[in-house]
């Protein structure tokens, strides 16, 4: 009893004050992967069953919808390619190094933190696929969060709605720079330290600003849902709804920015503020 309690307390202190256990954690993560995969099995089977038993008509409808989508997207891509080329040319003229080319890796969600107070997910790509701590995680609609721990085959990501997570954003309309903090509630972000006089209103799109060089520039983060000016408070109360569907997405994108790929892959382990 005493031996094991002492051992646990020692490990607790070691894990809390230092980073030595990071590698132990990633090794043990490989050991527990079967448990994570088994736990994901029902959800996976449900999706599969849904696909198998969908009627022919539903399938057809879905296919035609997807075809329409694809047509639209293809048209957009053609236009986008021209714009990217033009943008690169203009940036070259300005002598600026930043190019808007990011590579992405598709990963699948295989686990969710069961604690309702915490917003963390487990994905099925790890350091073997080049995932690194601090990497941005997106879904099709916007920014979801960042990777906080990796092991060989899986990694753990903190979502932007977690209370301990903040992301530097800017208002797309006028480039006003702000910080969006998670609130611990699924569909809500809070913008902190917004001056009462700031030009921000409901419906403004917030995109990642790239300040702090953690998140890539220009991905949608949320839409402002409420602006409240209370004369008694030093700052305005501004809330936003995350663009990404944080609790529904099963597939996520991991972003590799060019700057990041050029540099060394090993980075210091950055603890989120908890």
């Amino acid at each position, binding site marked *: 009893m005493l031996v094991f309690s002492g051992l646990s307390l*020692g490990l607790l202190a070691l*894990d809390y004050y230092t980073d030595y256990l990071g590698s132990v954690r990633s090794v043990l993560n490989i*050991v527990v992967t079967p*448990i994570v995969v088994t736990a994901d099995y029902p959800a996976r089977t449900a999706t599969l069953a849904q696909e198998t038993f969908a009627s022919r008509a539903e399938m057809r409808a879905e296919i035609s919808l997807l075809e329409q989508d694809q047509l639209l997207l293809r048209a957009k891509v053609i236009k986008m390619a021209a714009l990217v080329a033009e943008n690169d040319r203009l940036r070259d003229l300005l002598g600026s190094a930043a190019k808007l080319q990011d590579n992405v890796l598709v990963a699948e969600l295989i686990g969710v933190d069961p*604690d*309702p107070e915490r917003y963390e997910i487990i994905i099925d790509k790890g350091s073997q696929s080049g995932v690194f701590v601090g990497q941005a995680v997106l879904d099709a609609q916007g920014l979801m969060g960042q990777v906080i721990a990796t092991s060989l085959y899986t990694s*753990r990501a903190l979502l932007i709605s977690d209370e301990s997570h903040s992301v530097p954003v800017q208002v797309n309309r006028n480039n006003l720079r702000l910080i969006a903090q998670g609130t611990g509630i699924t569909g809500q972000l809070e913008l902190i330290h917004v001056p009462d006089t700031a030009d921000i209103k409901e419906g403004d799109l917030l995109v990642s600003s790239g300040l702090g060089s953690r998140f890539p520039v220009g991905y949608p983060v949320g839409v402002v849902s409420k602006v409240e000016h209370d004369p008694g408070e030093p700052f305005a109360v501004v809330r936003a709804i995350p663009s990404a569907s944080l609790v529904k997405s099963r597939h996520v994108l991991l972003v590799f920015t060019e700057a990041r790929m050029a540099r060394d892959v090993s980075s210091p382990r950055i603890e989120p503020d908890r």
Partner: protein
Amino acid sequence: MRSNNLWFIGLSFFIALVLSIISLPAFVPVDFGYLRPHWVALVLIYWTIALPYRIGIAVAWVLGIILDILLGSLIGQHAIALIVVVYVASSLYQRMRMFAVWQQSLVVFAIVGLDQLVNFWIESISGAADWNMWYLLPSLVSALVWPWVFLVLRSARRLFDVT
């Protein structure tokens, strides 16, 4: 004492670990997560009562470390909580065997509550938690689930003659 069918104990722990991280379907509100019983503690309590000479502090410690890895908590947090669980359960096992199932449920409520408390202490020291009464809900749910866990595991233990 000769051991028999110990794999079944391992299997029950595996199932408990899977159940404690299994994700709820997307349409279930996030707050329902508080209604999740502490499966690992329940199974651990059962085996401590049934086979106190096999399952003890060491097993609890290993399970706790696995749980810490699965949940991403500080390494050692669930380990120490489960050590407390097994310590209390093993010092009460002779009495627990005599109890009716509903009386056992009351004890389970107290033990799992203790486990939640230890977890909360460690989380609050490391600055990750605010107290709310929801923390006690898992122990209530665990106590309600206990009779079924007990009956299933007991019949399985007799069926496979686990010793």
